Structure formats: C-alpha cells, structure tokens
C-alpha cells in the first residue's frame, strides 16, 4: 500500500521535503514506516523514534497503518 507521510518544521528542513510517498506492505505498522523514512536522504538528522501522528492522533510504534491514513512525523512541539 502507498502511504503519504508529512514532515514539518525541523524535520522538513532536514529532509528537504514536506511529504513523501512510501510503499509499505499490507499490515505495516508505524515502526515499519519509520524504517522506510530512515532510508530517505537527510533522515540521519532525525531522531531514531520521532513522534508520529496517524489521522491526527498521536500513535505508537505498534500502531497499524491502513491505505489512505494521514500520517505525519511530529518534531518536538514548541507552541505557546
């Protein structure tokens, strides 16, 4: 399945892009997605276990992904 993952702030800067389309096996988890992200150019600047949101809710490594999910990597937040 194809999953589009969005990058923000310092992560978008490090990767030089705001999103990427990743091809993952059916039943893939957030952990699998992060493995794919780590192969992108510039990904060495990202932490090993960044926060991930799936469909705008914070997820964990074991969270299963489905085609069409809205996935985002969330750098350390600094609002307020």
């Amino acid at each position: 399945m194809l999953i589009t993952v969005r990058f923000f702030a310092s992560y978008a800067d490090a990767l030089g892009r705001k999103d990427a389309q990743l091809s993952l096996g059916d039943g893939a988890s957030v952990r699998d997605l992060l493995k794919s992200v780590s192969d992108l150019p510039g990904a060495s600047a990202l932490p090993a276990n960044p926060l991930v949101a799936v469909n705008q809710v914070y997820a964990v490594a074991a969270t299963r992904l489905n085609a069409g999910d809205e996935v985002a990597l969330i750098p350390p937040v600094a609002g307020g």
Partner: protein
Amino acid sequence: MRASIVTHALDTDALLREVADARRGATALFVGTVRSVNEGREVTAIEYSAYESMAEREMSAVLAEAEAMNEGVVLVAEHRIGRLEVGEASIAIAAAHEHRGRALDALRYAIDEIKKRAPIWKRELYADGSESWVDPTQVAAR
C-alpha cells in the same frame, strides 16, 4: 469551547466577550507573547508554524478536558502562526466560571497541556542574523 489556529493579530477583548455570561463572575485570561531574550540570545522575531488541523483538534481536546475537570467552565483559545515580532501575542486563552478557582485551574491546565501536545513549532530569529528551531526537550525544564 472553541480552539483555533489563526494568522491575524489576537483580539483578547473578543475572547473575553466570547466566554462572558451574566452568571459567570470570574474570567481569567492568559496571553503568551514573543519575548526579547531566550536562552541568553537576543530574539527579534519568531516564525510559528503548525500542523493546523491536528493542532486545532489537540487544542480542542485539551479544552474539553479542562472543562470536564472544572464543571461549569467555558474556555476559548487561539494560537497565532506566521511571523510575530517581539511583544506580539502568540497565544491567548480565556476561561470563565461562576467563581475564580475553577476559572484559574482550567486556564492553567489548558496552557500547560497545549504547550505539551499541540503540534506547533517556532523558529527563532536572532539579532545577529542567525535562526534556529526551538526544541523544548533540549533545554532544562522550567
């Protein structure tokens, strides 16, 4: 309850009016502004950005929690994004209740949790021309 990401200057009077009600005798307002010095460096401006839809969702969840923990409280919060100069307000939250205790408790919870959870980021621009993303996990807790 209402939480919004906005790109215009915050209007705190409008927020106070939004939570006002003749039965609510206590209204508390928190305003966060861009300060001129951070970590010993002179700041000239901050560029705020957000994962807007999730930030509004997370801020709304925080306000709902604060209202659930403080029965009768009404809250409204706005976070501004874009380039903000020193002294400009980045976030404003208003809380109103019949009495002050619940209003203040709800307000404190709301600002603390929004800072921890809302996917919002800031890039500080310094007087020496440099800039950097702010990472609260890399500085001592305060």
